[in-house]
């Protein structure tokens, strides 16, 4: 891998929640991101994926650890250097309407980014704004319109145009397609991929939607209760998911390919409280494969192959291995594509 754009080490983010209690939202997370690469952060609500994104953007101050970006530690950037930092790191949020000023025209929104974050001469900004709108697939005449004139997909294109106006090295995308219908979602993914191919921007893509993640990411980090529990190339994590949490997540996501079939693995109960973290493995209370030993020692993220890591004692060889032929891997082809098996309806017993 070439020199990383972003290197997160041991990132911790705690929130004080009163009465001396502490909520650990992000727990010793390590991440690396190369130029032109997309790393997806995947997990359910409360997994800490959005908090990681906000720490990287310095919208939140980390409690511990380092975030190296272009030779600087983002966590220690002096306020006066933040502006220079923001010329290189931009963000697109989930709800495009909420993230655009309703009283500014589309042209003014994009032009503001050019004015504040680039050295573009004033005379050039109008023309460049139109070029940016065209680049994201909008009619340059849309510059005169206001956000409420646009569909959600078009609004998200404006947010993307604003984000790439300063040609950032890193784009944090926090659920950018979650509020869009499937066809619009595909169009936005295609746009993001073409922008990445052209500009070489690195993407930190935060999402709970596994279909989207599959189509845009190179690598995935699966988060649970503030920790990364599995990480690796997208083909490996989808094709040979190792951690019971990843397997349950993939099994729960309905897919056209699997049709009626029940993939079997499901998690019992609820995600434990991040205020009162369990002793051993964080998944132990919900894991269908739990052994007594899992509740004792906290597992480390260890390699299952050169590029694929997992945080499960039964996967990394410390305890009896997980049962073979788990339901979802049995229906997965060698390249990780779930097959089109359509069995008769399985009436679920869970």
């Amino acid at each position, binding site marked *: 891998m070439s020199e990383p754009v972003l290197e997160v080490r041991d990132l911790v983010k705690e929130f004080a929640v009163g009465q001396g209690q502490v909520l650990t939202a992000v727990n010793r997370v390590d991440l690396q991101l190369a130029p032109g690469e997309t790393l997806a952060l995947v997990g359910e609500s409360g997994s800490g994926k959005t908090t990681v994104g906000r720490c990287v953007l310095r919208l939140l101050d980390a409690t511990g650890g380092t975030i190296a970006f272009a030779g600087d530690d983002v966590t220690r950037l002096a306020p006066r250097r933040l502006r220079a930092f923001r010329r290189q790191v931009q963000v697109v949020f989930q709800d495009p309407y909420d993230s655009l000023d309703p009283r500014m025209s589309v042209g003014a929104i994009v032009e503001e980014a050019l004015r504040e974050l680039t050295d573009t001469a004033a005379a050039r900004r109008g023309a460049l704004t139109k070029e940016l709108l065209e680049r994201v697939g909008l009619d340059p005449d849309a510059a005169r319109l206001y956000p409420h004139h646009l569909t959600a997909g078009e609004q998200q294109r404006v947010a993307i145009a604003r984000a790439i106006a300063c040609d950032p090295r890193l784009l944090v995308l926090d659920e950018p397609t979650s509020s869009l219908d499937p066809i619009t979602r595909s169009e936005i993914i295609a746009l993001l991929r073409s922008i990445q191919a052209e500009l070489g921007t690195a993407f930190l893509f935060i999402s709970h939607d596994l*279909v989207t993640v599959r*189509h845009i990411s190179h690598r995935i980090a699966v988060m649970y209760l503030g920790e990364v529990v599995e990480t690796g190339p997208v083909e490996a994590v989808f094709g040979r998911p190792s951690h019971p949490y990843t397997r349950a997540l993939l099994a729960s996501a*309905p*897919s*056209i390919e699997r049709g009626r079939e029940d993939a079997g693995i*499901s998690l019992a*109960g609820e995600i434990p409280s991040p205020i009162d973290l369990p002793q051993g493995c964080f998944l132990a209370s919900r894991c269908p494969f739990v052994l007594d030993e899992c509740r004792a020692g906290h597992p480390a993220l260890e390699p299952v192959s050169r590029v694929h890591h997992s945080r499960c004692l039964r996967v990394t060889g410390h305890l009896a291995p997980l049962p073979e032929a788990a339901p979802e891997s049995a229906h997965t082809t060698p390249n990780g*594509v779930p097959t089109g098996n359509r069995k008769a309806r399985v009436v679920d017993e869970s």
Partner: protein
Amino acid sequence: MSEMLHAEGVTVDYRDRQTLRDVSLTVGAGEILGVVGRSGAGKSILVRALINLVPPPGKLVDGEIRAFGTDLRAIGEAEARSLRGARIGVIVQNPRGHLNPLLRVGTQISNVYRAHHDATKAQARERAISVLRDVGIPAPEHRYAAYPHELSGGMAQRAMIAMALVCDPELLIADEPTSGLDVTIQDQILKLFRRSVDERRTGGLLVTRDMGIVARFCDRVAVLHEGEIVEQAAVPAFFSDAVHPVSTRLIASASFAADAPGPAEVAQ
């Protein structure tokens, strides 16, 4: 198969624009009909029209809607109300906006039950707690006494679903009931829905934009496009043989397979 819901020629005008045009569909006992389409296709208006509650200035101008053989447009509001909530369960979008912020969540669910059953407060409470447990709310005895603002978004959404299920409806109409919920919870709720339809031979209409949900939980699917149904088919056949361009794009956009026409192709 007996029909739980039969709609024919349903047309809704919204000021001078037609938002639904000549929509006909049926839901039989023991089946779930999926309704899919892009944003703005008319899915949510259709849900309102099917229970004869089109919000003004929209107006149901034409069509016939029968639930269990009863013509919903012919009966009075009192009779319609005794059907909705009891025999017809409805889950709308935006759960928080439909919970009364001043009442405890459990009380609201109990009230629905008591409106349609001759039950004591204690019986209604017991029933409400059992439904809250069914939709995966932990410690339902405690959550029963919570106010809506004390619940997370996902929790409030599940409380709304519990409210729709508390009377064991024979027909459940749900508009994106699990959008925004985590997949593990979504899976749990839709399995509950499927099981109820299978075991009690009830009917379901499920509006969704997740084609995976259609594949996993629906028997038939109707594709809505600009207020019209452009394709209707049985589920396994739909995914292999869909012909309308909106259908094929919806399918392609939701495929997991790396060798499927990827997003670029879908976007043309």
